[in-house]
Structure formats: structure tokens, C-alpha cells
């Protein structure tokens, strides 16, 4: 019954959020909200930008790339010199070269892949000043890119798609900071740790050992970690620890927060293009795939562990509990896992490595579908719009018209950009996995042999290529090879899609709108939802089917046999 109520309350809460946060975000990006004008204006002055002046897509993209480049450089530098910086009660030394590069790329691309244990690697200053800052900034960058693409649809004959700096600043001040602040208070109120006093040592007289317990400014970081679909926790064990995720309420809140903005952005889209129905169609595509994934992952986790079953214990009433927090149980953990992997968050309240093969398949394929169900903050929307454009193109041809989406003709240029945007992810994931399994440095990474080991590598590079950041576990990532390959994977996975998305925005904004008629291909009905789902599943399925067969499918079909 608990699982039922979890789902029901989430649906209600997210439904309200979709409607009201969605419309609020539209107001923010349309420039109709001003209650923080007094903080906004000095920031523009400091940035030297004129908020009234809009940018072409090229300038917008250039600003975004330059900003992200500077962010990587600054984050990298802070990690390298953390030993000389304050707020370092444990006196942790500089973070290694390759690891700093990987971590900087990871947090700037909203991935939060962590090749380190937070409590033993990062000083408080690095956690707050380097990583948490990026947890605020990187989702704002993603949302800004999504909004710029949406403006391509909502404008006509326009050379510009907004001002990157304005979108970035407004997103942070009006959306991310206020919500994260409130959520942070709840986390801390529920018992998440929030302190700068360093570790505590506890002497266990009974066993005669002294334990060092890591603490830190965890509670507020937790809020933005989930809200911004970041996923990088303070502690190595992430949301599975009581310090990050103390109660069932915070577990629920975590799931809610990481789904809130990605879903709500579809309303924002509908509002900005003047047709809520269009936003609802994308929402429906997201919800259907998400629902199916939650369903079968929960089901397969509830079925119990095939390896345990192979050992003769067929009755497993609590499902597969290996690697799970007993506090959360099998199905709720599966829900958390699917929510986290389908949103490019990547936080974890269990060990994903210990999911059943087919449960792990649910997590892995959730990412392989391109992180669009609902995907990351901003990235989910712009990526599903790219898929929608492909659906429009094929569907539009089938009714005998030059395809158009929201009145914008989808022509050679759009197809080129959408093709690039939708195919770059499978391309890099497969190529990098191919390299990793071929070279010695890559082959020594996984803990397990056989298909499970293969899945560990595939999962790692899929997670990074999709800017998810969740770890399957089992893969030793902190090696020069995986640090560098992973960083490149994350950077291409992020900017290889953002740039085509912005180019699409620019190209669409410049077009006139074809008036709607009975002969127009409908992009707001059930049929279209089906087509979008079809395109997402077919592109993901066709590109990853062979790889999946060699990983989780073989493993599942082996019925618990180890390799």
C-alpha cells in the first residue's frame, strides 16, 4: 500500500507543479516577473550585459559555450588548489589532474559523474564553492538552452532567440534558488546534516575501534542536487545514507524534486508557443515511457534476485533487497532509480549494480532513450523537441505535406540539425564503449567479468554521454583513461546536443508561420504522442539493441548464472 500512496501523492504533487511552476517559468522567461529586480540589475551591470539586447543563435551559443568553458576552468582550478583554500578541516590535498578535469566537466555539464568519494576527496570549500555552485549554474544553462529553442517556435521572422545572460540569471534567481532554499530547509528539518565543523571521531568501546564519521554542509546541497537534476552527492553513498536522505519523506521529496522542473517545462513550452495542448502532448510522451519503465523495473525488482532464486530460494517476499536500503524497500527504490536515470540526475538511494539484470536494464535503457522522459532540467525538453522534429518530419511526409511543427516548416536544415542532435549520443556512447572494451586501460575497469562487466563499462559511458552521472558501481573510474574518456563523453554529450538545439532555435525563429488548416499534420493529439514515443524508442532501440543484448539481456537469460 505504501508504494501506491507514494505514486499517488507524487502524481498529484507533480500535476500541480506542472501547471503552476510551468506557467510561472513561462512568465519568468517572458520577462513578466520582477520581484527580484533589485538583485538582477546589479548582476547585469557586473556582467556588462544589456538585458534589453537580444542575441542571435550564434551569439547565444557562443555566450553559453564561453560561460561553460570558464566554469570548467574555474572549477578545475579550485579543485587543484583546494589545499591552500579555507574551509578544509580535514586538510585534504589537491585533487589529481585527470580527476579534476573529469569532475569539472562532470559538474559543468550537469552530469555529476563522480570518480571520487566526496567525503575523502573534497574540502568543504570545494563542495560549496566549486561543486554546489555548478549545481545551480548548470541546470540554469540547460533550461536557458531549452527556452531559446522554444522561442524558435514562438517567434516568427525573428533574428534573435533571447539573451543568454538574462535567461541564466533569471533562471537561477527566480526558479532554482527559491525552490532549493525551501527544499533545503525541509531536508535539514528532517535531519540531513548541515555543518561546517568537520568530521567527528567516535570510539566504539565494545569493539575497540575508533570510527571517523564524515559530516558537512549536506542538507542544502541535497536540495539543488535533486532539483537541478544534478545527482552529485556530498557523500560517496549518495542518497542511500541517512545524512543525505534521512527519512521516507526526504526520499519522496527527492523523487519529487528531480521530476518537478523537467515535467513542468513542457507546460512552459506549451504556454510560450501559445498552445498548452502541444505541451501536454510532449508531457504525455514522457509520462507514458516513464510509467512503463517504472512499472517493469519495480516489477522485476519485486520478483526477487535470480541468483538467489538459482540457489534454491524461490520465495522472496521482499523482492530483491541486495544493495538496497531496507528503509525504502524494493519498489520504492526502483522508482527512485528510474526517476533518477530518466531525468539525467543520477543520484542513487541504492546500489544500482545490485539490481536484477532486467532492473538494471530499466535503469540503463532509461538513459539510452536520450534522457527525455522527462530528462534533465532543460536538456529533457530540448532533446525531446529534437525527437519531435524527426517525428514531425516522417509523419508529415506521410500525409503529403512539407512537414511543419507549430507552423514552422521542417526542411533540410532542420532535419540535418535534428539528425545530429538525436544521433550524436548513441554515436559517442557506442564508440567510447567500443574503445574501452578494446584497450587494456579500459578492460581493467570493471569489477565483474562477462556480460555484467560489459554492462558496467557500457553503463558508465552511457551515464556520462547522457549527462546522467549515475554509477552502476563496479567500474573503477578514477583512472586516467576513464577520467579523460568520460570527460570527453560528457562534454560532447552536452554541447553536441545544445549547439544543434540552439541552431534549430535560430533557424526556426527566422521562419514565417504556415497557418493551420485541416490538412495540417496535428502535433497535439494522441497520434502524435504515439509517433514521438515511436521515434524515441526506435532510435534508442535500434542503436543500442546489440549492445544491450550482450549485457543485461544475456545476463537475465542466464538465470543467475555468474560469469
Amino acid at each position, binding site marked *: 500500500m505504501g508504494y501506491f500512496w507514494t505514486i499517488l501523492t507524487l502524481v498529484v504533487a507533480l500535476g500541480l507543479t506542472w501547471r503552476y511552476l510551468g506557467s510561472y517559468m513561462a512568465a519568468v522567461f517572458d520577462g513578466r516577473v520582477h520581484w527580484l529586480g533589485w538583485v538582477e540589475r546589479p548582476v547585469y551591470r557586473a556582467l556588462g550585459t544589456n538585458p534589453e539586447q537580444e542575441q542571435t543563435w550564434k551569439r547565444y551559443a557562443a555566450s553559453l559555450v564561453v560561460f561553460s568553458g570558464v566554469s570548467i576552468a574555474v572549477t578545475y582550478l579550485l579543485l587543484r588548489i583546494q589545499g591552500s583554500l579555507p574551509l578544509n578541516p580535514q586538510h585534504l590535498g589537491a585533487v589529481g589532474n585527470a580527476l579534476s578535469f573529469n569532475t569539472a566537466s562532470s559538474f559543468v555539464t550537469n552530469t555529476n559523474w563522480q570518480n571520487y568519494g566526496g567525503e575523502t576527496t573534497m574540502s568543504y570549500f570545494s563542495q560549496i564553492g566549486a561543486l554546489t555552485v555548478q549545481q545551480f549554474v548548470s541546470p540554469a544553462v540547460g533550461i536557458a538552452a531549452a527556452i531559446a529553442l522554444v522561442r524558435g517556435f514562438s517567434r516568427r521572422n525573428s533574428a534573435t532567440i533571447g539573451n543568454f545572460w538574462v535567461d541564466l540569471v533569471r533562471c537561477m534567481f527566480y526558479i532554482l534558488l527559491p525552490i532549493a532554499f525551501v527544499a533545503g530547509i525541509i531536508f535539514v528539518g528532517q535531519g540531513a546534516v548541515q555543518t561546517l565543523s568537520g568530521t567527528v571521531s567516535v570510539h566504539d568501546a565494545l569493539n575497540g575501534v575508533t570510527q571517523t564519521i564524515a559530516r558537512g554542509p549536506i542538507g542544502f546541497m541535497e536540495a539543488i542536487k535533486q532539483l537541478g537534476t544534478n545527482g552529485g552527492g556530498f557523500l560517496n553513498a549518495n542518497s542511500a545514507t541517512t545524512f543525505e536522505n534521512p527519512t521516507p519523506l526526504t526520499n519522496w521529496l527527492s523523487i519529487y524534486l528531480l521530476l518537478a522542473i523537467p515535467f513542468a517545462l513542457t507546460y512552459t513550452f506549451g504556454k510560450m508557443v501559445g498552445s498548452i495542448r502541444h505541451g501536454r502532448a510532449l508531457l504525455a510522451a514522457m509520462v507514458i515511457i516513464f510509467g512503463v519503465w517504472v512499472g517493469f523495473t519495480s516489477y522485476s525488482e519485486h520478483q526477487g534476485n535470480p541468483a538467489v532464486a538459482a540457489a534454491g530460494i524461490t520465495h522472496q517476499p521482499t523482492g530483491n533487497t541486495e544493495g538496497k536500503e531496507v528503509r525504502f524497500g524494493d519498489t520504492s527504490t526502483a522508482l527512485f532509480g528510474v526517476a533518477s536515470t530518466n531525468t539525467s540526475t543520477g543520484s542513487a538511494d541504492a546500489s544500482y549494480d545490485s539490481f536484477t539484470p532486467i532492473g538494471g536494464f530499466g535503469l540503463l535503457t532509461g538513459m539510452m532513450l536520450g534522457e527525455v522522459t522527462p530528462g534533465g532540467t532543460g536538456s529533457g525538453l530540448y532533446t525531446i523537441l529534437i525527437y519531435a522534429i524527426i517525428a514531425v518530419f516522417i*509523419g508529415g*511526409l506521410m*500525409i*503529403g505535406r*512539407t512537414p511543419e511543427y507549430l507552423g514552422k516548416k521542417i526542411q533540410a536544415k532542420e532535419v540535418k540539425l535534428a539528425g545530429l542532435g538525436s544521433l550524436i549520443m548513441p554515436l559517442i556512447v557506442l*564508440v567510447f564503449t567500443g574503445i574501452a572494451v578494446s584497450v587494456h586501460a579500459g578492460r581493467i575497469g570493471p569489477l565483474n567479468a562477462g556480460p555484467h562487466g560489459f554492462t558496467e563499462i557500457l553503463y558508465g559511458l552511457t551515464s556520462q554521454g547522457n549527462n546522467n552521472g549515475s554509477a552502476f558501481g563496479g567500474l573503477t573510474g578514477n583512472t586516467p583513461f576513464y577520467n579523460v574518456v568520460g570527460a570527453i563523453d560528457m562534454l560532447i554529450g552536452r554541447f553536441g546536443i545544445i549547439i544543434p538545439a540552439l541552431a534549430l532555435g535560430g533557424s526556426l525563429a527566422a521562419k514565417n508561420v504556415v497557418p493551420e488548416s485541416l490538412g495540417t499534420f496535428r502535433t497535439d493529439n494522441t497520434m502524435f504522442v504515439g509517433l514521438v514515443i515511436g521515434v524515441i524508442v526506435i532510435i534508442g532501440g535500434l542503436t543500442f539493441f546489440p549492445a544491450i543484448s550482450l549485457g543485461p539481456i544475456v545476463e537475465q537469460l542466464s538465470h543467475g548464472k555468474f560469469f
Partner: protein
Amino acid sequence: MTDSSTLEAQGPDAPAPTTARGVAQSRSLFDRAILRQALVDSFKKLDPRVQVRNPVMFVVLVGTVIVLIEAINHSSVFTWSITIWLFLTVIFANFAEAMAEGRGKAQADTLRRMRSETEARKLLPDDTEQRVAAAELAKGDLVVCEAGDLIPSDGEIVEGIASVDESAITGESAPVIRESGGDRSAVTGGTKVLSDRIVVRITAERGHTFLDRMISLVEGANRQKTPNEIALTILLAALTIVFLPVVVVLQPFGHYAGATVSVVILVALLVCLIPTTIGALLSAIGIAGMDRLVQRNVLAMSGRAVEAAGDVQTLLLDKTGTITLGNRMASGFFPAAGHTEEEVADAAQLASLADETPEGRSIVVLAKERFQIRERTLGAAHEFVPFSANTRMSGLDFDGRSIRKGAADSVRRWAVEQGGSIPDGLDQLVTQIARVGSTPLVVADGPIILGVIELKDVVKQGIKEKFAEMRQMGIRTVMITGDNPLTAAAIAEEAGVDDYLAEATPETKMELIKSEQEGGKLVAMTGDGTNDAPALAQADVGVAMNTGTTAAKEAGNMVDLDSNPTKLIDVVEIGKQLLITRGSLTTFSIANDVAKYFAIIPALFVATYPQLNTLNIMKLHSPQSAVLSAVIFNALVIVALIPLALRGVKFRASGSAAILRRNVFIYGVGGIIAPFAFIKLIDLILTALHAY
């Protein structure tokens, strides 16, 4: 306006021609001569320089070479079978294109024969004639053509009038009248003068005559890819590019799993995954689309125009000839106060006895039908008064009576001049008739005004349903007419058009097109006169009538050889059908991949992971038969779909949602299911043959 002689010849109610005529001499889809030529061309097209233009098939060709090398090094029945079937895949794709081109080539050959046989009688400045070959004529030369002569080149009649047999171009056997001056002065090279003598000034440069253009069009000599075709090619190339690493990484993936991965199977997998079905048929679909237009006697100057036709949202249709029959017909007699209907009918018939216009004849017929008033013999002392633009009346003087019929104000004035008066209610009667879109003719017997004849514009049968279909397809129809707004509104209402432009002039027509285009709509129109030329050029799809002036034909991007403006509707449908065929086969091609995966992936790794045989849901006999079956299916499906590509996917005029549902079901869902069945079938056959 439209040449009435052509219209009559065709019969006003004639349904759109269903059989191919004219340039498109009837040929079955798989004519034997074309088939033979296409087979030869399939091999000629193996030239890599030709193949590289089609990225999808080029990959197949390269794959074939790789497998061939593999087959030579590790010869086995399996490797050779794969090699042969991959090679056949390329050949089948070439064959599809060659078939599509073949029909055009055959037509071009017929036309070319016509061109080479012509000899011209060039008129020199001193009025003497000189016999020269048609090919030597230059622009501006004058030539003489008399009965029996072929007109040597395109030109304008500067002197004379003649009946011309244009069947060589249009397939229409009834001769048409061509005369100097006005909109009927253009003649086309290759047509035959049947009577009289004309002097023609040549207007086409050598090698640029209408016939030359036709030849290069039907042959597809300089066919360029259309915008949607380019966009689709990009998508197909992108899919091909992404499947390349998908397949290539299977080598290291397999190696990691401890499997040896056969290069032959990898190539087979790649070829099965990349969208070969649509890649092979794409250009054939485009060529066949142009060909379908030619079958209906429409020449499109570019593929772009055909595609634009599918996108058209506003159709501008001339009232006369397109919406109405072009002739007004008498539909009723309305007596003025103090007279009977029969009196009016009687006088009207008398006044029309000598009136040979369709309107006049229809009055005679109506009087006969209504009141059994037969044509009568008049005494010797009678005189017909013909219609003149001055009097705007016609009639008959006999037995001292002067009967007149004509425009309301003219007849009224005439009656008053004769000393008569205007009966009460006449004005109301006249306005009432005008309001419903008809033309009132007033009939007077001397000073006495008897009543009014109603001449009705007769809307073509079935046109209203056609417009309803258009509406369903989201196309707005606008009627263009020179009539006053009152009349126009009534006819628009009756014909069921969405809007009308009354008292149209070339300028208002042009404005209408521009304003529609500014609203983002694509506009199609027909036209024939020189003053239509700017609008034809401005419209996205401008269909010029073959009977029209050279200027009109050059301004438009299509020429209708039948000069039947209603055909604009067919053109729109062909444009849509072209896109639908492409979209549907793309969907089919991609949907096919699912089954192919289930055939090949288990086959590829089953030696290492026997568990994967669970994925062999088709229960194919052996790994080798599975791969071969998928490859054979992949090749044969191209051949199987050639007729569909050439004919086009069946098009029904209905709303977009219905069309989409139908095509997604047939080509999407069907595309997923069908290959499972056929691959299994091929596997069963291979097993039965003990091939494996």
C-alpha cells in the same frame, strides 16, 4: 480566358481523363521494352560515380566488395550467397531507378522522332520562300505553314487563321483554332496545320523549343532533387552514419565477450539496418511522380513545383471553364406584369432563332421544352438583328414586329424610344435574378416589355464535392471572376468555394496571391493570357494552359497540355501522393529493422552465449540461414515495392488525421510485422532446399 474550342471538344462534363493520352501514350507499368532496357541500365548504373550520389546504396556497394573479398579468401556457400544477395540488392535499387526512367525515355524517343522529321518554309524579306531544316531556324524568323504542314518550331501567328491538330503534343484529336493577335496566337513546334495558311514568327531559340523542353523533362535529363527529397536524403544519410558505428563496435564488443565476429555477418547486419528500402526507391519515387503528371498531360518544369503542389493551401480557380461550364444557359422565363410566361418564351425563342451562341441555343431549347414551341419557318420578309457591342441586343424583325432581347438597360432604353413604358416590378425582377448569380435578359416586342429571361451560369457537375474534398485536405478554394460581387457571391455559394474574388483584374489577382503568401500560404493558380503571366510567376504553383500565350507558358512552372483548369486539383493530389509515398516507405524501411535484429543478433552471438537463442523468436533454422534470410528479404522487398514506388501510395482525399492513421498502420505497424513473416518464410524455403 480559356479557349472554348478545346473545351467543347473535350465535352463540358467529360470526367478527368483516366486513360493516358498524348505524350503519355498508354504503356503498362511493366512494358516489355522498358523492362529489357531497365535490366541493362541496372548494370550500367554500378559505376561508383553514379552510386556515390546515393549514400545509402553506396554503403551497400562498398559492403558487397568487402564481403566479396572475404568470400574469395574464405570460400563457402554462405559467404558466396551473401555476396550474391548483397550484389543483387544494389542491382535491384538500380533497376527501380531504371524502370522509373524507362517510361520517360520511351516517351522522349517518340517526341524526338517528331522533331527530326520537320522541314520548314522560311519566308524571306522579299516574300520568297526557302526550304530549310527546322533545326536551322533562328528566333525571329518568319515561316509559312499551309494545310498539311508541320509547324517547325514554337512561334506566334502574325498573319492568318488556321485549324491546327495538336494531338502530337496533347493527344487531343479535335483540331483547335489558332489565329493572329490575341491570346490564341501561340503555336507549338511539331503540331500540324489542317486548313488555311498562316505565317508564324519563331519565338524559340534553337534547342529551346517547347518540344525540346518536353523531351528533357520526360527524360528527367537534368532532374534535381527537390527540397523534401534533400531533407529526406539527409535523414537517411544520418541513419546510415549512425548504424555504421553500431555495427562496427560489435567487433570489439564481441571480442570482449570472447566471441569471434564474422565480418560477413557484420556487413550483412549493416546492410539490413541502413534504410536500403527507401534508399533504393527514393529516386524512382521522384521520377515516377513527375511521370504521373505527364500521364495526365501536365508538364512540370521542375520537381520542386510538383512538391510545392502538395503543400498548396490556397487554390485560385477561374470561374469560367473551371467552376462553371463556361456558357450560361437559359433557366427560366419571368413575365412582366400583364404578360404570361409563355408569351415571354415565345418572343424569346423568336429573338434567338438566329443566335448561334450557346446562350441563344439554350433559350430556343428551353422554350421548346417548357411550352412545346417548335422552331418555326418564318416568312420571307424577316431580318435577323445580330448582337453588337454597341446595341447590346439581338433579335428579329418580321411581320412588322421587332422583337429584341438583351441587357436590361439597353432593352429598356430601346422600348422607351419605341414609345413604350417600363412595366411595374421589372426592375425588381432584374435585380432579383442578378442577385442569385444569373444574368437577366429583358425581352421586348416593340415598345412592349414582355419579361425577363434568366441565364444561369451552370456549375460543373461534381465540382462541389471536389471542393468539399479540398476543404477536408485543408485547401482553401478561391473563385476568380470578372463578375460583379453579387453574381460572384451567388455562384460561389452554389459551387461551394470558400471565397471569391469578384471583378478581378490581373492586379487584384496578384494582390490576392501576395497577401496569401505573406500569411505563409502556398498558392496555386491556372492562367493562360499574357496578363496572367505575372500572377503565374508569383504563384507557388502556376499551371499555364497549353492553349495560352507563350508568355503565360513561360511564367508558369507547369503546363497543362489539355488546357483543363480543373486539373489543378489533380496536380495537388499528385504532389501529395509523392510525399506520402516517400514518407510511408521511409517508415516501412525503418520499421523493418526490428525483425532483422531479431534474426541476426542471436545468430551473431549464439555460439558464445547460447542463451541468446531465446531472442530467436522466429525460430530460424540456423545462424547462417537466419542471416541469409534477412539479407534475401532485404533485397526482395525492394523489388516487391517497385510497383508501389512507381504508382505511388494510394491517395484518398481526406483529413490529415485519417491519412496518417492509415499510413502509420499499414507502413509502420505493417512494417514491423511483415518482415517477421517473410524472413521466417524464406528461412523455411532455404531449409527445405537443404541449403543449410
